[in-house]
């Protein structure tokens, strides 16, 4: 410790620099306009309750896959993460590589949605959106791309409705929710989920925010803002940072009954792995899933550890299974330049080949 190469004048210089950056950044923050979310043009195709089914405007001059792809996003956070900015858009990447992309936007559930169950989401909302797409395109089956919790829903849906799904892509999807490195899972094991839902009705988005930020509190609530000072003197960086910031804190409430079942069945009882999962009246056994599956996970994912996804081939009945690991985190897999260059084209290649 005696050799720490610090000089007092250097410390002061650093602080002066920090302060100058902050001053410039403050001006940029003051001048910044409201941050928009979602960049690719889209059309509303179907709506029900707070759900909207969007179709993204296909890219011109690209040979299009005749089988449309439905993106099923998580109920947690908002789906514009997949289309956050022009050069960081998974959706645009899919369009540019020939996919016909639809997305379910779940909206913001309120008290009137408290009694929505997983059955309502999976065999109700998703199934009706799939039917709308099948009818529009005159096809029996469509492709599904499930993201995170949406991946869990997609696995359940595909297992129950294989006659309607041609190919399934799961991204950062928690299948084994009790791997030893899963902090989220560790935290909920002793929680009385019934008491939470009974007391709160819907689970407030603020509670989810608190939970996610506290997985890495020093980085996510401290270091991030110190590091932000380094970059906010550039106006473009301010916008990009604020887009992410907006997304992080844009957490819809969770419909009470769906939340109750999701945490109990998946995170506390790990039923996708242990068995015994029922969605409504239907048993879900992943062994019955014979659809081709592309399973993508992020190697540095602190929300869904890789092992939580990697168990999938041991559980499903499909003989056409492909796995793609991405050297990044849970968010980087959608927004990083590396992901745009590798993950999105890989999804399209895989879909186009089937």
């Amino acid at each position, binding site marked *: 410790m005696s050799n*720490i190469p*610090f000089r007092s004048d250097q410390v002061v210089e650093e*602080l002066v620099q*920090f302060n100058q950056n902050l001053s410039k950044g403050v*001006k940029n*923050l003051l001048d910044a306009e409201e941050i928009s979310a979602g960049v690719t043009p889209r059309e509303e195709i179907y709506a029900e309750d707070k759900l909207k089914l969007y179709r993204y405007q296909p890219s011109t001059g690209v040979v299009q896959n005749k089988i449309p792809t439905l993106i099923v996003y998580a109920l947690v956070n908002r789906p514009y993460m997949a289309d956050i900015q022009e050069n960081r858009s998974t959706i645009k990447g899919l369009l540019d590589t020939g996919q016909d992309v639809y997305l379910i936007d779940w909206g913001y559930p309120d008290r009137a949605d408290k009694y929505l169950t997983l059955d309502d989401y999976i065999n109700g909302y998703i199934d009706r959106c799939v039917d709308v797409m099948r009818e529009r395109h005159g096809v029996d089956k469509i492709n599904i791309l499930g993201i995170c919790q949406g991946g869990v829903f997609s696995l359940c849906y595909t297992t129950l409705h294989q006659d309607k799904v041609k190919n399934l892509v799961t991204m950062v999807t928690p299948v084994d929710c009790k791997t030893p490195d899963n902090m989220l899972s560790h935290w909920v094991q002793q929680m009385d989920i019934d008491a939470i839902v009974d007391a709160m009705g819907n689970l407030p988005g603020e509670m989810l925010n608190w939970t996610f930020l506290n997985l890495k509190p020093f980085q996510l609530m401290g270091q991030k*803002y110190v590091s932000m000072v380094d970059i906010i003197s550039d106006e473009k960086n301010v916008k990009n940072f604020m887009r992410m910031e907006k997304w992080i804190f844009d957490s819809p409430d969770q419909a009470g009954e769906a939340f109750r079942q999701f945490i109990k069945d998946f995170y506390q009882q790990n039923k996708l792995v242990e068995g015994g999962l029922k969605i409504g009246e239907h048993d879900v056994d992943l062994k019955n899933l014979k659809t081709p599956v592309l399973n993508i996970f992020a190697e540095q994912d602190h929300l869904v550890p890789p092992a939580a996804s990697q168990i999938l081939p041991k559980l499903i009945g499909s003989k*056409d299974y492909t796995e793609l690991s991405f050297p990044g985190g849970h968010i980087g897999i959608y927004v990083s330049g590396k992901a745009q260059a590798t993950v999105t084209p890989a999804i399209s290649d895989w879909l186009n080949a089937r």
Partner: protein
Amino acid sequence: MSDNNSWAEQWFKAQQQFVDAWSDMAKTGGVGANASQSDLWAQSFDMWRKACEGKTQPDMEMAMRKCMDMGKEYFAMAEHISKNMAQGANPAEAINQWLEQMKQALQQFSGMPGFNGAGVSDFMKQWFTPNASWQEMVAGLTPMNQAMWQLPGMNTSVFNLGEMIDPLGKVLEAPGVGYFREPQEKQQKGMQLALEYQEANFRFNQAFLRVAMESIQGFQQRLLGQNGHNLPKSLRELYDLWVEISEEHYAEFAMGEEYQALYGDMVNRLMIMRRHYGEMTDDFLRSLNLPNTREIDTMQERLQQLRRDNFALKKELKEIRATLAQLTAKPAAAAKPAAAAKPAAAAKPEAAAKPEAAAKPAVAAKAAQPRKPAIKKAAAKKPAVKKAVAKKAKVTRAKAGA
């Protein structure tokens, strides 16, 4: 924006003075022992922040607030180290003194039953951000009930829970009497639950305090153990290392059984208390002949079930219509083989005779079109699919970007 510009100008002037002052100090070799530049910095930022409130986009305001808060803590760290250096310590000693100062500051809270993270100053405040943000969130989620469950003195940092519980416990155990016996018992129960939640919250905070002190020790050990290698060469590197070590200690704590039990207990007790007060509020509303949560829940549950039934019926109806369309289309096609060549023209005379009847099957047939032929198509495709599956009976693994 004009307002913003005028405030911005003032701010920039103040900042320029601040920068000049620090620059002068850089030339003279450091911060004076009695100077408190971080305080000045924080004050100017606070003043400016208050002035800008409501004049910026809410998202921007929140980000600015966080940047400034973190900046304040970052400056506090720098100031402590600089002060120690100004008093003659070498950089290593200055950092170690700063860490010891933080440890001592935390030790005063150790064992204090009422400790809730408040009162921790400067840099180590970050260790109690989870607690502070928890309190903030809970207050936001229970705005109506706060007065009920935030018992007198509970929101201060130094009250002694043990001293409070004993006499209060006796009051809470007193039997209810008379006509208002039941509401009185519910009030007592509510207060009891509030105390239990506060106790759980304090146990959680005390565990944080212990781990925070361990992290300082871990930081000191890491710096000692580096043997001159990879030691921080700048303030930022020192800060980043502190974050890294704090995250390591926190992760170990958060993945342990103790955290799971403490956190689970705190959440559960909060929810049980909240549920109890919710029920009391329901009783109160019922007494005023106003709708309460229980009643609205019942209606919502029934409504949701009706919607499910409605969707199921719609689906069934669609299937019946499709079947009907097939049944009516088949005899028509069989009766008029020539119609196959010109179905539209052939259908016309019938449609003219019975416009309604003819129109309905046509619509139904159209609706059914994607279903029936599609099913046939799928059946025809089956062997090919099987072949493809047989060919691809493999697990492929790839690495993005490889």
